């Protein structure tokens, strides 16, 4: 065997390869590191964005939970999508909570990204001030019966007949009489209506609507006579499908024939101050005369000159026809208000700052000063230096009423009468019918309720606000009368100063449909409730304990007692169904 004797060569290719690959590896590592950093940065940014959205989702959930349960305090590590969130709810005050939500990606234990958002939630509300325990319109305020007491102050745009008022009592004059309605142009009347000359044309009627619910002062007619007709009676009648209906009790005056001459002139007919009619409703003023073909009246008229009514010719209690030509309106001027008001009787005030203030004050025992122009039988003399008080606007506007009705429309309407004979929760809803609560059962108001018919409580039944109202007040509004009898109970939401308010737009008992029922009749009961009937009469009897009452006319009898709550100066009503918790704009903060 031949032995090879080759000398090993000194090769370098392996070294070159190693160097080459080392450089390549280094470059690759650098590049991969850069790419990795870029990807990581991108992922981090996506995670931060996801965490922010999770935190906002937490805020939304907290808001939902608060509206299901006002005591909701938060939750921890709730999974959603790629992460989790934690919610904390703390009270700032009774109407405000702070919600803090933190979103974690992927979890709170080892988060890639964490974002925290905080907001404030509040019970939305609007504030309406009830400055007085009792405020009445020009119908006045009448107390009777031993022990009948107002624990608070009274402001009436009319007369006050007092028993015991622990605060001040103010009876304001009505504004100076002005022509609320008129049809009196052109000065030379283009048309005329002859009446009192025959049985079929014995009487004249003119429909009208008042712009304000003030007491009558007088009516003037632009009228002349032929021969020597008798005096005529001027009456105010309800409307009956476009024609004069039944008479409004007590509202009559006399057109004195001797004041009417053979040529046109304005003749005044004075009317009683009560009852007070409802603004915006159609009534008829009727000149009820006797007929004689030689002795009759001629009323100046024009064609469609009065927008709020029309003239009719006929016989009161009989048939009414259109004028000839049809559409004539008689010349008239309707004057409202202008009367001075008075306070009579009673014990008023408990401190020297409690005053009695009216144009006339008689037979009153007042702790503080008596401001009046005339008076007698009082425990001190009239201080005449202070001018008569001016009437105050009522606390609720038509807009407030409409807002509540709109809130009620947010819920499903209920058609027909509702008889509640077991504990029931309603609202927001509009009930097209009557509602009665019987047998001591409880209606829980979860949102504003609008009842187009009547509301009746009997047998110790109760109305209470749902807990979701928090510190706010809630409303049941009706378009007809309210009857509360048999120890009716009223409860707020459980928070201090939270009350149910029963509000009626009814003008009862002045309208046909009232069947002599007052707008609100409260025959006894307990609890915290506000009663409002700005167009009608509230009658309170039988030891009732109330918080605030506002009405056109108010009467309290039988030892009833009203306890005014100073919180009603700024009564906060829930805005929106159920007084829901809502995000308070301006409080969103990204904490981190």
């Amino acid at each position: 065997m031949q032995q090879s004797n080759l000398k090993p060569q000194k090769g370098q290719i392996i070294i070159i390869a190693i160097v080459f690959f080392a450089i390549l590896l280094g470059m690759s590592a650098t590049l991969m590191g850069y790419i990795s950093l870029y990807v990581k940065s991108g992922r981090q940014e996506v995670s931060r964005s996801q965490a922010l959205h999770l935190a906002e989702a937490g805020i939304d959930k907290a808001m939902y939970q608060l509206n299901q349960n006002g005591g909701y305090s938060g939750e921890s590590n709730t999974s959603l999508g790629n992460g989790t969130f934690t919610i904390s709810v703390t009270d700032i005050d009774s109407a405000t909570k702070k919600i803090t939500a933190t979103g974690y990606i992927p979890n709170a234990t080892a988060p890639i990204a964490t974002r925290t958002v905080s907001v404030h939630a509040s019970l939305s509300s609007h504030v309406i001030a009830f400055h007085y325990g009792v405020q009445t319109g020009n119908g006045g305020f009448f107390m009777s019966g031993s022990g009948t007491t107002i624990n608070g102050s009274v402001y009436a745009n009319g007369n006050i007949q007092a028993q015991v008022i622990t605060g001040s009592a103010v009876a304001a004059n009505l504004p100076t009489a002005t022509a609320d309605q008129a049809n009196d142009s052109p000065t030379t009347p283009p048309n005329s209506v002859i009446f009192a000359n025959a049985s079929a044309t014995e009487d004249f009627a003119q429909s009208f609507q008042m712009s304000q619910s003030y007491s009558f002062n007088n009516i003037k007619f632009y009228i002349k006579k032929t021969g020597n007709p008798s005096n005529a009676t001027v009456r105010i009648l309800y409307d009956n499908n476009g024609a004069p209906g039944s008479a409004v009790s007590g509202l009559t005056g006399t057109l004195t024939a001797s004041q009417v001459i053979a040529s046109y002139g304005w003749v005044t007919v004075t009317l009683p101050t009560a009852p007070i009619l409802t603004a915006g409703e159609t009534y008829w003023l009727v000149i009820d005369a006797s007929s004689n073909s030689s002795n009759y009246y001629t009323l100046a008229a024009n064609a469609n000159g009065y927008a709020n009514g029309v003239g009719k010719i006929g016989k009161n209690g009989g048939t009414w026809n259109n004028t000839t030509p049809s559409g004539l309106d008689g010349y008239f001027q309707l004057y409202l208000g202008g009367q001075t008001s008075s306070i009579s009787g009673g014990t008023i005030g408990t401190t020297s700052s409690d005053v009695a203030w009216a144009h006339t004050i008689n037979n009153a025992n007042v702790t503080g000063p008596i401001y009046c122009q005339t008076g007698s039988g009082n425990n001190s003399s009239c201080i005449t230096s202070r001018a008569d008080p001016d009437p105050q606007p009522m606390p609720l506007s038509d807009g407030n009423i409409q807002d509540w009705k709109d809130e009620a429309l947010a819920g499903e309407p209920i058609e027909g009468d509702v008889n509640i004979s077991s504990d029931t929760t309603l609202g927001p809803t509009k009930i097209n019918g009557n509602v009665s609560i019987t047998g001591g059962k409880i209606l829980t108001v979860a949102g504003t309720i609008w009842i187009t018919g009547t509301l009746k409580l009997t047998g110790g039944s109760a109305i209470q606000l749902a807990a979701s109202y928090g510190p706010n007040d809630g409303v049941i509004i009706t378009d007809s009368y309210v009857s509360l009898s048999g120890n009716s109970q009223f409860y707020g939401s459980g928070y201090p100063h939270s009350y149910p308010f029963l509000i009626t737009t009814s003008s009862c008992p002045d309208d046909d449909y009232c069947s002599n029922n007052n707008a609100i009749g409260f025959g006894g009961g307990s609890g915290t409730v506000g009663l409002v009937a700005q167009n009608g009469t509230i009658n309170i009897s039988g030891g009732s304990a109330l918080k605030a009452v506002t009405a056109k006319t108010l009467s309290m009898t039988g030892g009833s007692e009203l306890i005014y709550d100073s919180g009603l100066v700024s009564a906060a009503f829930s805005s929106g169904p159920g007084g829901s918790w809502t995000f308070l704009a301006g409080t969103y903060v990204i904490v981190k």
Partner: protein
Amino acid sequence: MKRLNAYVQQGFTIVETVITISIFMVILLAFFNLYSHYNNVFNSQQAISKVAGSATLAMSDMQNYILQADQVASSHTFSSTVYTSGANTLVLELPAINSSGDIVTEKFDYVAFYTSGAKLYRLLSTDAASNRSPGLKQLSDSLSSLVFTYDNATINQSDKVDIDIQTQAQLKPQPMQYRLKQQIYLRNK
């Protein structure tokens, strides 16, 4: 057995030298090409990272402030310089916050996002009661375009702001661009 006699070489032949140099030239060329390609990829990745990161971070920063704003301010004076909201400038009013992260009522901070050439800045002016840190911060130096669009012709009544941001880096043969668009609602309005 015949024995082979080894001998000792004294140098490289010309052939060996030429071959060796040729091999090294090939290796160097490959290495140069590799480096050149790597350099292109590296620059490209760096540009992507820069323009994307710049746009994303700028968008995130603007989102952070828009969410907390209670209104788009028509204009505001920052140290005697007036900034007016428009297509390229956004001025926001923010409820001031205290050290606990709670709103300080009736106190406001103002922030302006504005451009200068390829740079995007955020300028923050704070109320004395605020816990935010005032000052100027550069959010991007690779801005190509930035357009703010409002949902109301009266800018300070806007509920949301649309942001269209585009960043750019110079690369051969063509520039690298990155574009982000986002609608952001003012939570505090």
